[in-house]
């Protein structure tokens, strides 16, 4: 029977919703246990949050001053020590999970399955390649630990209301001091989080400047949406890099995605394919974004956005 260990992602003492999405994926495997591992300097509050996720069997809380920041080189040996006896180790395919999971896999001497989209059986999964233009079915060996990242956009967050026991765990592992945290420059957090928001308004190169992006933010605020961007908009310096949506940015699945002044390159589209409803606003009727948009409106964004705001009342 499978026993699955999920590496919790957290920041500033709060559990990231990606952890509950990993639990959903783990539930698709008929597992005997789904445990969550919390590595932190002060894990208690985070562990208490993880314990509330329905489907979690047990939360393992490992307090260690060295774990104050999520450094892969510090986390990986601890995960390896905690993973003995588990058949699977899962992490979200966020920048956190992408950083730490391969390090865990290599220390265990096993391959990693990146970006699980669906579970066929305990060792067989589907995942995207070529910017999502092909979906492969991969089979991991049954006699090795399966280390995998979970494509968070493919999985709903598991419900709350659980009450799993929390166990304090001490791991006797030496962690390296060769990697040191310096600082984290975080974007403003007043708006909904791009990765978990139910609505997202994104702007592309067509928006034209950082100043013009104010109209995207204003529209987003009006409908309670998070703000995203294409690579071109980020490269041009209109918005910070953590807003980039796509193959090499964030892969998201909001209920509503509004793409404004974005052409719809494959690298962008792969980041939004799982969105519920895609709206495209572009002045070029031939733009590839219309191939996947559910609702399209052709025209100049500088004329349409004010009209939209008026229509929204």
């Amino acid at each position: 029977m499978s026993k699955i260990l999920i590496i919790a992602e957290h920041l500033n003492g709060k559990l990231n919703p990606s952890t509950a999405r990993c639990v959903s994926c783990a539930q698709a495997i008929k597992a005997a246990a789904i445990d969550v591992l919390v590595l932190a300097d002060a894990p208690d509050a985070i562990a208490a949050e993880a314990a509330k996720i329905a489907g979690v069997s047990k939360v393992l809380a490992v307090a260690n001053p060295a774990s104050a920041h999520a450094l892969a080189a510090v986390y990986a040996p601890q995960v390896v020590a905690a993973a003995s006896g588990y058949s699977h180790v899962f992490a979200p395919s966020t920048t956190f999970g992408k950083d730490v999971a391969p390090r865990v896999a290599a220390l265990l001497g096993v391959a990693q399955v990146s970006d699980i989209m669906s579970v066929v059986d305990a060792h067989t999964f589907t995942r995207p390649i070529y910017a999502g233009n092909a979906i492969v079915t991969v089979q991991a060996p049954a006699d090795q630990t399966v280390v995998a990242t979970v494509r968070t956009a493919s999985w709903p967050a598991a419900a709350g209301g659980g009450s799993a026991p929390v166990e304090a765990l001490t791991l006797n592992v030496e962690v390296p001091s060769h990697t040191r945290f310096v600082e984290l420059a975080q974007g403003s957090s007043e708006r909904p989080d791009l990765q978990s928001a139910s609505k997202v308004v994104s702007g592309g190169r067509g928006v034209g400047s950082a100043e013009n992006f104010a109209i995207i933010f204003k529209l987003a605020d009006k409908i309670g949406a998070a703000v995203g961007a294409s690579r071109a908009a980020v490269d041009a310096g209109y918005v910070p890099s953590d807003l980039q949506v796509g193959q090499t940015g964030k892969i998201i699945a909001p209920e509503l995605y509004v793409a404004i002044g974005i052409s719809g390159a494959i690298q962008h589209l792969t980041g939004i394919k799982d969105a519920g409803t895609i709206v495209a606003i572009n002045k070029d009727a031939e733009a590839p974004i219309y191939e996947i948009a559910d609702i399209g409106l052709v025209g100049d964004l500088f004329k349409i956005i004010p009209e939209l705001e008026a229509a929204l009342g």
Partner: protein
Amino acid sequence: MKILVGYKRVVDYNVRIQVKPDGSGVVTEGVKLSANPFDDIALEEALRLREKGIASEVVVATIAPADAQAHLRNGLAMGANRAVHVVTSEAIQPLTAARALLKLVEKEQPQIVLLGKQAIDDDCNQTGQMLAALWNRPQATFASKVEVSGNTAKVTREVDAGLETIEVDLPAVITTDLRLNEPRFIKLPDIMKAKSKPLETLQLADLGVASGDTLKTTNYAPPAKRSKGVMVKDAAELVAALKTKGLL
């Protein structure tokens, strides 16, 4: 110091890849191949570190079939001093790549290994992290800024929450993100010069690495299609359509 750069050849990012009707793979015959864009960024960063006098030598390495020589010559034309071609006829998985790169690291003793954060064919995003683990050295992934001073590097990383800065002792593995730099274009005279630069050829089978290719791909499928959308004529119609769907 020496910098080793991982330089993979992939299907060009402009190609819209097609899945074979029988699900046995994707069509790669006659498709344009290019350097993985993230690896071009890695090579560019190494060259800039050399131009700043921080690095003295830049070595590009690839693990690829015999016909990838021209690809390595491009890396040399961009400015690398030397190239190492680890020849294998089979496509390999990240764990094998990391094990092979570790052999090169042991031989070359670089202070920095620069790799792309992911290859845009398999989109795995694993090799740099795996190499760092096997080498027991730091990893600084998704770099958008690299500052080397003495025996440490300060690296700014593009993470979901914003920009994180870490400091790592060298030697270390650094993987690149899109904003690190804009790779230079190759000039014609450099292509000529590259022809005489050293290109070493090794056989993967001779490196003595255990294969980590344990994942079996059993099927390739095209992605699910989204159903055809509708066009609306103005903002009012758009708002009405969204309200009908309960999205506003």
